[in-house]
């Protein structure tokens, strides 16, 4: 088990003091039963497709991950060295669980899996990502997605 108290003191302090955005509103969108939903993954793991420019510090843009991209074409370019990568190296689903979503669609737990997923790089200030998230939202809606699973690292 790894909890905050398992992290080095300096990391704990950094996390406790990290400035987080605050919001005046509390949007909360309802939807149909899970078995009818179309699910997409949006991750902040800094995933890129092989050959794409990796993320660098401060990047607030995103990469497009079509569902059919083979796992061996997906790399992790998050700038932080302070999280485990061995899990992702052994199994992409630890971070980008598209195979599991396919299982769940097959078992009719969810309705379907989105055609396209998206990756940001979570070390950047999320406030700089707002316009890009809005663009991603437009693409997700065009794909009829009505459930987004967000995975950090």
């Amino acid at each position, binding site marked *: *088990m*790894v909890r*905050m108290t398992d*992290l*080095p003191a*300096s990391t704990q302090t950094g*996390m406790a003091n*990290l400035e*987080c955005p*605050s*919001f005046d509103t509390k*949007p*909360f*969108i309802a*939807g149909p039963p*899970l078995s009818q*939903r179309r*699910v997409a993954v949006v991750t*902040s793991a800094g995933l*890129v497709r*092989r050959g794409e*420019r*990796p993320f660098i*510090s401060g990047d607030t843009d995103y990469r497009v991950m079509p569902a059919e991209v083979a*796992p061996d074409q997906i790399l992790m*370019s998050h*700038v*932080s*060295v*302070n*999280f485990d*990568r*061995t*899990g*992702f*190296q*052994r*199994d992409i*689903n*630890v*971070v980008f*669980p598209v195979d*599991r979503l396919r*299982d*769940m669609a097959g078992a009719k*737990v969810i309705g379907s899996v989105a055609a396209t997923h998206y990756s940001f790089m979570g070390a950047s200030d*999320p406030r700089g*990502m707002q316009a890009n*998230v*809005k663009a991603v*939202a437009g693409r997700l*809606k065009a794909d009829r*997605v009505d*459930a*987004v*699973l*967000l*995975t*950090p*690292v």
Partner: protein
Amino acid sequence: MSALAHYLEDEGLPTVAISLIRLHTEKIGSPRALWVPFELGRPIGAPRDGSFQRRVITSALRLLETATRSGTIEDFPDDDPTAVDLPGWQPPFALPAGIADGGHDQDSLQREIDAIAPYYERFMAASRRSTVGLSGLAIGDCVRFLTGFIAGTPLPDVPPQTSAVQALRWVVDDLKAYYFEAMSADELSPASRQMQSWFWDRTRAAQAIIAVRRQLLASDDKRAQAIGRMNMVPGAQVLRLGLG
């Protein structure tokens, strides 16, 4: 992630976030979140355990049906069963020689790579993938780049509009991935902290990365200093090894 969730919901999309740092999720106020007691870097938990992964994802997605108000955080009850130390664990290969001489020149680092290459290949064949590739360089060129950077000798070409320091970060990421994938060549993969300790204590590659970090920290260039400070050696290893 919580901020992204907020922005997506603002656009009319229902979201559920995995939370690794509960404190941040509480502060930002994610619409719906499943906090998981897993290591940073493993939001879905156990690698190669589809059943466990499905339980995590199902628990998260169920919140889309059961949560009744924004700011709902549910706690996943179980630990990642694979995140355990294996007493006496050693990687499946032996390195050519100890690191007592402190050598991390191109030849000695390449000999180390040669020794682990069959295990990297074995990992790749079994997994049908590798996460090596950010730099776009072959692993031998990564070695040349790293040792050339330390020695101040000419470096292999990097992609256009990429600084040498930026390319260095990707080279270091590739080298680490190469070693850790080789270390995972058999099914006996221990907790990541055990693998990290072994890598940073025992390999010439780690010695070279530590030397590069030292060099970057001494640079006049602020971006080089930042990459040295943030993107080379994990904070836990900096503390453990007393690197300052």
